[in-house]
């Protein structure tokens, strides 16, 4: 019994790393994605072309590859080691890779959402003497949020599960931890790993459903 509870405690401890990676990725990638979206919609062609190319590359290659490249490339190219030693360095590298990857995915969702708002909404705001930022924050934004919520919730739920990819550079996340127990002949920790993910994803699903319901009061 005490064996069970120590293992569960260690799994939970490892799941904290997944949780931290998840939260940090959201905190940085949500706003960064918006900036990238504006870049890709820029009327200055070089900027939009560059942004769209970067987004295309990031979305077209595996996240796992990006994590490896971001972690090892600086050292191999002789740029020194920006990540620092030990677990915290590996975690930083994974976080940076996740933020870049997810910002690119979010940017495409934002772009679709922003371009999906009818031009008439902006023009109605303009004709009423609103500034560009007033139009964005007071007219467009909430309509964008409503439009992108389903796609965003999908992406964010995928992020929860993707966090386990961090193990590729030896971040001790939950699946890696459970995997170690299989070497000792224990299979059930892997099963509980799945339960942890399900609970997390279930909670997020409830949250997003509540948000969608909250925005149900208008149609656009």
């Amino acid at each position, binding site marked *: 019994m005490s064996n069970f509870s120590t293992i569960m405690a260690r799994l939970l401890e490892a799941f904290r790393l997944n949780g931290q990676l998840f939260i940090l990725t959201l905190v940085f990638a949500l706003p960064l994605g918006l900036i990238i979206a504006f870049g890709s919609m820029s009327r200055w062609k070089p900027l939009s072309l560059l942004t769209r190319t970067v987004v295309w590359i990031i979305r077209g290659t595996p996240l796992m590859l990006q994590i490896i490249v971001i972690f090892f490339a600086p050292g191999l190219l002789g740029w020194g080691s920006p990540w620092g030693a030990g677990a915290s360095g590996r975690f930083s590298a994974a976080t940076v890779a996740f933020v870049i990857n997810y910002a690119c995915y979010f940017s495409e969702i934002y772009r679709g959402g922003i371009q999906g708002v009818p031009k008439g909404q902006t023009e*109605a705001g303009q004709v*009423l003497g609103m500034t560009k930022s007033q139009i964005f924050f*007071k007219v467009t934004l909430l309509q964008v949020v409503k439009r992108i919520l389903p796609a965003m919730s999908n992406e964010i739920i995928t992020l929860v599960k993707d966090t386990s990819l961090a193990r590729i550079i030896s971040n001790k996340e939950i699946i890696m931890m459970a995997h170690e127990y299989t070497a000792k002949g224990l299979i059930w920790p892997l099963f509980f790993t799945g339960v942890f993910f399900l609970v997390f994803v279930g909670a997020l699903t409830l949250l997003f459903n509540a948000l969608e319901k909250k925005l149900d009061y208008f149609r656009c």
Partner: protein
Amino acid sequence: MAILEVENIYKNFGETQVLKGISFSLEQGQALAIIGASGSGKTTLLRCLNFLERPDKGIIRVNGDVLFDAQDPSTQLEKEIRKKRLNFGLVFQSFHLFPQYTVLKNVTLASELLTKEQLKHQGRAALRAAYQDIEEQARMLLDQMGLLDKVNAYPHQLSGGQQQRVAIARALALHPKILCFDEPTSALDPELTGEVLRVIRGLAEKKTTMVIVTHEMAFARDVADHVIFMDDGVIVEEGRPEDLFSNPKEERTRQFLSRYSSSN
């Protein structure tokens, strides 16, 4: 003196010349109807007046002040265009109400944002008092539109005719000197056009200065003080409605009107 003078407006989109030298003027308190076939440039003209398009050539004056002169970049500064827009109101063919706001908020939003900027350095109390005035005025306007029972509804809960009346109230809330309508009833079911036309007629009786693009010939004849017939980017003929509709001088006008009287 005319409240609005439009002088020799040209507008191209790439290779297509859409407006080819439009000039007209409008007196305070008058209603001008613009008629013409599809693609003749009516919407583009209204969009130029509202600074949604920038004419390639020409001058726009309001009360004698040059609002826009294609030759003079100092009349085209982004900051000032915003203020200049407020001389005009525009009611769109397809309403473009803000879906996330109630009817009342649709009408008050722009005024509130403007007031907030103007009262930036004054206390909260001043702002609250101003907001109260804005709301009261909005309620009066909505009452005038026959929508007092809908102030708390959201746009999707209204019929097209009701939405268009909200859009009219929203435009009026900023007290434009000249209110423009772009085919305000074209997106409506026939049984709903009456309620919107009635509201516009009411505005004409109150001497609201208006430019109305419309395909409703009977309405134009009835409400307008002056009618312009446009074709292919030019004004072919203009005059008093009773003259233009009963006694068109130009062949093109005659053809256009006969097509309309036979199809309606």
